[in-house]
């Protein structure tokens, strides 16, 4: 499959799912007479038609270059992306319990190690400086409320 036909099929599937979702939207007598389904129907039609258009256009194209997501060739990059996402999601889950300083420090250590491979001291400095400087800037200077977490009893401010 080429890049355009992949995009075309993606649009057709996404548009169809959205269309199906639209049929599940409850319609009440209250509210405006157009209702909550009209606009989504229009959107799904546009997406599906454009997807089909891409597929047809691609069939007519004589020079077709196969498309690859690069899962094998760029495996390291994809793994880094997934690991970054996982680190981000875990960061959100533990932020309130561990507190801003500890959670941010841990998140920064993990992503720095993923990106700046092998330079442990540099990464430690980045993580400490980033978490402390942002905490001081946002919690103390801009007065945003940030969770103290585990350090709640130790922090003097």
């Amino acid at each position, binding site marked *: 499959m080429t890049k355009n036909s992949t*995009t075309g099929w993606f649009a057709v599937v996404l548009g169809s799912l959205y269309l199906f979702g639209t049929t599940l939207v409850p319609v009440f007598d209250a509210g405006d007479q*157009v209702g909550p389904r009209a606009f989504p129907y229009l959107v799904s039609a546009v997406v599906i038609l454009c997807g089909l258009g891409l597929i047809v256009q691609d069939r007519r194209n004589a020079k077709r270059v196969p498309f690859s997501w690069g899962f094998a060739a760029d495996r390291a990059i994809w793994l880094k992306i997934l690991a970054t996402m996982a680190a981000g999601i875990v960061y959100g889950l533990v932020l309130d319990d561990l507190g801003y300083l500890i959670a941010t420090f841990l998140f920064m250590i993990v992503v720095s190690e993923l*990106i*700046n491979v092998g330079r442990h001291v540099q990464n430690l400095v980045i993580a400490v400086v980033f978490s402390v400087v942002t905490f001081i800037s946002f919690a103390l200077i801009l007065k945003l409320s940030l969770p103290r977490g585990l350090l709640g009893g130790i922090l003097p401010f």
Partner: protein
Amino acid sequence: MEAVLHNLGLGLEVALTPTNMMWVFIGGLLGTIIGMLPGLGPATGVAVLIPITYGMNPGTALITMAAVYYGAMFGGSRASIMINTPGDASAIVSCFDGYPMAKKGKAGSALAISAIASFVGGMIGMVCLVFFTEPVAAMALKFGPAEKFSLMLFALTATITLSEGSILKGFIAMGIGFMLATIGIDGQSGAIRFTMGIENLQDGIDFLVVMIGLYAVTEVFKNFSAMDVKYDIDAKSIGRVWVSWADFKKSIGPMLRGSPLGFLVGVLPGAGGTIATFLSYAVEKSVSKKPAEFGKGAIQGLAGPESANNACSCGALVPLLTLGIPGSGTAAVMLGALMMLGVRPGPILFEQHPEIAWGVIASMLVGNIMLLLINLPLAVPLVRLLKIPQRIMLPLILGMGYMGTYFLNYSSFDFVLVSLAALAGYMLVKLSIPIPPLVLALILGGMTEQSFRNSLTIANGSLSIFWEQPISLGFLILAAISLVWALNKQKKLMKMPSEPEEEAD
């Protein structure tokens, strides 16, 4: 004229307060640095700096974000001149003659004229902004739902047709944006739509979360493949950052032509700095008596586009401030951040909060002078920042992105959303689906649907309301023209021997 001066005076009162001056300076400097780093443009700059604006009043927030925006325009060309790598797409043209100038030992002149041309572009752009905004805002106040819907349709169509790549992919991007915008409780009927049973989605998707994902985190993902690039910069060889009288004289014409051109391009929704700079370069080459010198270090080829670029960022503020429709990705992020602070840009802004609207316009006067003063004497130390490797910058951008997400709603669910948005953004880039139409549709989605439904309700379900109102009809015709123009352009490209669509991507 008197009213304009009065408004400008009001704006200056706001802009010249010590707090606002400080933020113009900080925003401009940070923007210059972010704009300078290869791969990171103004939209990323504004997105990662959103958290800074949380504790501010809306006026100061807008002033700071605008300073980041045009600061990035100042910075973008540094990397083009020194290492032949544009800081963002709108600085590509600066490579054409800026880098050859540096290779000839004229890096100091190139850096100086790019700062001066950026300043001239910014100042002329600001003056145009002063005269443009009030009439447009006054006209927009008269718009009913049908006009609003057609205007948004035109803005979206123009964004699609003016952005790079396939039109069909642009419309798909717009569709995805609308899909995301319709998630949550429908404001007009109360029906819950597309939440898939997830409670956190009932209030809808916070579009700032999606934008931080797309513009900060996705940008980091894109840079994962180019992390170990080292740039060879010899800061000592730059010499004096100044421009000779002869070179300056040669640059006056290009700057005076590039600025109004850039401004007008900026006003069009979707047509950003890239188009403005290429157009200005083409104009300069065609009016030059020695076109053969272009590409070999002609100072005119740097001065024109640099001024067009900055004037364009002023132009992009016209639809943002007067219509509430962002003219570029960066303006879209600014709009999102402002809405979070409780201000909705649009015609009413000039009536209800003239100090915000005119404050930001006047702050550009101050900001451009400051940036010229930063960029001339500090050119050499700033260029040294290019030596900071990507592998140190990228974790910091990730940190700012995720931290900014937390500050939005203090919700751990947003961390999932921002991660998913970033992954989706990376996949869309791989498929060459343009991001700006998606972002614009996501922001304007609620308003577009509402005006669509209100119009139909007024007209008892008849679609004819959209072409019976003259202004609405005018916007529909403009949308059609932009579509026909783009289709023609694409047809011509298709006929070329190489595979153009992949190339355009």
